[in-house]
């Protein structure tokens, strides 16, 4: 009825020596990063901002989102407090501060934003390209 067991489940082309960032870049590939960069350039010119909109800037934004997810301050602003202004370094985060100033971070959120329809289509496409479903 179903023929032979022909699909190997999981990743279609598993690479044992994959690094964590390489795995991420299989899903968030250059195509998506370039689309983010192009839409950011449009928003930047509309608002007459001088912020960086390259692919490099997109990855900075990506890293900042992951960083905020890990530190989880009550308010985002707290990550950008000056290094010596908080008690024993409880507030502020040097990694996030190296990526953006608070104003740059606020701009980056608006620059690198895309509709859920485009993102869903990309997600579904990459899932079917890279994976075989089920155990």
């Amino acid at each position, binding site marked *: 009825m179903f023929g032979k067991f022909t*699909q190997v489940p999981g990743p279609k082309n*598993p690479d044992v020596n994959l690094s964590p960032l390489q795995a*991420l870049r299989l899903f968030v590939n250059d195509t998506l990063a370039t689309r983010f960069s192009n839409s950011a350039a449009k928003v930047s010119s509309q608002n007459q901002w001088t912020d960086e909109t390259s692919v490099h800037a997109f990855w900075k934004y990506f*890293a900042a989102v992951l*960083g905020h997810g890990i530190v989880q301050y009550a308010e985002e602003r707290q990550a950008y407090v000056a290094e010596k202004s908080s008690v024993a370094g409880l507030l502020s985060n040097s990694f996030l501060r190296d990526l953006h100033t608070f104003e740059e971070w606020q701009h980056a959120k*608006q620059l690198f934003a895309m509709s859920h329809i485009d993102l869903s289509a990309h997600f579904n496409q990459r*899932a079917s390209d890279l*994976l075989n479903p*089920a155990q």
Partner: protein
Amino acid sequence: MSESHLSLRVCYRKIAVDEGGLPSWANSKYRKYTPGKPHPNAIEYLVAVDENFFAFNITWPQDDSKKYDDPEKKLDQMRAYVTYFVEYDKQQLPRSKQPYIFYIDSRWASLKLMELLHENQLFGVLSCGENMRPKVLWSWIKADLAKYDWWSIGLPRLSANLVCVRTKDKVYLKILTNYCALKEIQYKKRKRKFPMTEFYVAACDVQKEYNAFKCKVDQLNKAVLEYFRLSRYLDDKVTFTQFFIHLFTVQSWTYYNACTGRSLSQLEYRVLVLQELAVEILPPPQPSVLAVHWPKHMGGRTHNCQYSPCRNNCTYFCIACEKWGCLKCLEKAHLNG
């Protein structure tokens, strides 16, 4: 291994399809208020999650109807998933047809859905609600059912069974399935009051099967939201983009663990990704002279500072320079090269 053994392995492709919630306060037409949820203000999405924890075919239904009204009205939402996996198989080379087993909530479970699965030669474990037709069935099937007892009705047209289990005094689990066996098993339970001893009751295999896999989408949603920062963004595009950044990260985390055979936690994976990203996106740190020439405190020993004109007594010694010095002089000498 014989053909019959191979076919036994084939029947193991479980896909849970359910809704997840993206908490948001954005000005979005997709946002819904659902009282009683951990995040009542949320944007709902549908997703299929397989047994390896990989997510497929995320959709945003924007369904304004009541959550548990007539499930037949929501058949199109599930039809999209059935079609996705049937079409997916057609695209594979060599062409194959895999018998996926869908685990679907009572919000969508109906006889028509089971017919759809049956037509496509797929399997289903559907949890049924009492809004499902025929409604007269439910009072009849529940009548005279003692606690922990179960009852089943066969549907030969669909090769399916409807099983009703009385799990608690007033709770009934109703499952329509063309996959699970009806054999009796021993199910472990725990008393809710002291002493919370464990005991075994006779149950249907369906109950165990459903409970084992029904929460896969909830687990994915929880994994994504664990590091998703709930903020008051007014623009829903910002919320969606940040959600997808976390979803891509969770998917790649599962992918990485599957490829390398490692079992990193999500936090460990995220930290490794950030470390690799930091090397690429941040300028390399300037090598500090003091990192090599680190002044060492020599305990109780003292010496005159060897950096002229200072001749103060000092307790620090630079091992790389082999010179004694007070902190100010050491810093001045090293930073000025």
